């Protein structure tokens, strides 16, 4: 469950985050919703680690293997004898292997990015289109109605223009 507060500017939003942390909310449970990226720590701190690059690497390896078998494997399966030229040749195999490795690495990057972002989301999450117009959203993951009400109260005191729980996109 999430509670979202909408702030007019970055200063009041930053103040709200400070107040939430002081009130005992864990920083990891708080996130900002913004239409532009702010440097890490301006509003909240993110976990610098990410795993999606491994999916890009895995994609690259799968692509390289697929490319190798497509060029070299099928040349071996469907041999076209031309003079004394080898059936499996370095250039074509290298090129097809490289291209497919890159293609799958790129697809792996995109897929990994969305998986790590958890997009598209499974359910409805609180959001306000005003965020696109420069307003700042501060979202807190809460476990109970009580916690949610407390978070709302803190954000209102910190200058939130409005708060919401289950708004649709």
């Amino acid at each position: 469950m999430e509670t979202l507060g909408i702030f007019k500017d970055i200063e009041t939003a930053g103040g709200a985050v400070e107040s939430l942390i002081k009130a005992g909310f864990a920083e990891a449970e708080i996130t900002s919703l913004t239409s532009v990226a702010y440097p890490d720590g301006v509003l909240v701190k993110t976990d610098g680690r990410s795993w999606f690059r491994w999916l890009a690497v895995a994609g690259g390896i799968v692509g390289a293997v697929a490319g190798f078998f497509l060029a070299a494997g099928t040349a071996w399966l469907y041999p076209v004898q031309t003079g004394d030229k080898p059936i499996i040749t370095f250039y074509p195999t290298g090129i097809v292997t490289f291209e497919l490795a890159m293609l799958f690495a790129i697809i792996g990057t995109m897929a990994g990015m969305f998986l790590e972002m958890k997009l598209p989301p499974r359910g409805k999450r609180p959001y306000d289109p005003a965020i696109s117009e420069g307003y700042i959203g501060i979202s807190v993951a809460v476990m109970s109605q009580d916690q949610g009400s407390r978070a709302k109260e803190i954000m209102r005191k910190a200058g939130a223009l409005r708060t919401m729980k289950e708004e649709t996109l």
Partner: protein
Amino acid sequence: MSENNEHTLAAKSAKQLNDEMLSSMRAPTWRWHLLAFALGAVVAWGLYAFTYQMMTGMNVTGKNRPVMWGFYITSFVFWVGLSHSGTMVSAILRLSQANWRRPILRAAEAMTVFSITVAGLFPIIHLGRNWVVHYFLPYPNQRGLWPNFRSALLWDVTAITTYLIGSTLFLYLGMLPDLALARDRSSGWRRKVYEVLAMGWRGSAHEWSVYHKASTLMAALIIPVAVSVHSIVAWDFAVTVVPGWHSTIFPPYFVIGAITSGVAAVISLMIIIRRAFHLEDYLTPLHFDNMGKLLLVICLLWSYAYFVDVNITWYAHEPIEWEVFSFMADKYTLLLLLMLFGNSVLPIATLCFKKLRRNITLMLVVSLLINVCMFIERYLIIVPSLSRKNMPFVWHTYFPSWVEMSIAAAAFAGFALLYTIFAKYFPIMAVTDVRELEVRKAHVPLGRAKVPAIAGDD
């Protein structure tokens, strides 16, 4: 950006910046419809010419022994070259964290996607029996056919498919936050489309963090693909034993030529977009200055590569190589001189000067002329070499027929139409990228002056 421009943008609210940068997405005017109709009419004419060629046969083209690669392959190489720089320039500028890149990114990336799409059509048009194009695809079939990967043409198919998919994903990745912006500002069917494309993006800190890492990784991955694509197109020529083509310098020469035409096309498009959507505050003389410097360097490199190639032909004086060059210099003197003027003399002479680089009209003339001359360059690579191949008894010249010219014209119109439609339905400026710089910019006191500073790492 100039100081005046910085203050102009800083004084604007996020809503104002959004309104201005998304102005291209307003309801189409009668002018837009007229333009789309005119471009559509040229495309329709090209489709008619292509249908006529399919029904009648390849004899309606100007191709004949020994010139079996004519306008279609010239167009193919030209459009692949054009596609080269959009994604590559964007990727290099992203990796080098050049802040001035921001208003340019989208125009460049979209150019790549549409030009590689157009490029991919030409080998199919060139095939002759276009209806059996699926024979290229590697799948088990009752004909017992399997693509021969030893053919350089198959390398092309693989490389172009990779580049098309990679560039489309790169464009989409860059647009993701802007699609969410478009979603929040639209209604009806458009909103539904943007909702699907935005994938539920909210702009959380985690999403931004992953997004930036993915953008950097994609930029790093797409550069070698871009270089490989044009190197492979060059190998279509260089791995043959046709005089004039069989040269080790061809891959780097093609890559340099591709970047030249691509950078020039990005500049032309920037000028057109700037004028059409009144984006003078965003695409400032500084952007043209920087792109002009880049173009200058690339034109110098192109001149060097061309000089080296011709110089070796002249110094070695191998009879058949010299025959091809002499034939080109004699029969196509005007085209050759125009090519050297447009690709080398004019850009080097003008782009050396800051004042001229910041002159938008002049930049439009230089950049358009470069692309005209790059088309000529590709024509001069292909036609004279094939006209004077090793067997003198089949020496022959070539001139494109109306069918080939119609299809080539339709390709230009098709590219422009795709771009026009894209600009109407998708953000043509990287809105969040530009706004990100604005929110992070501040003027800090240093000694007696206040100097601009940008908060945080890029």
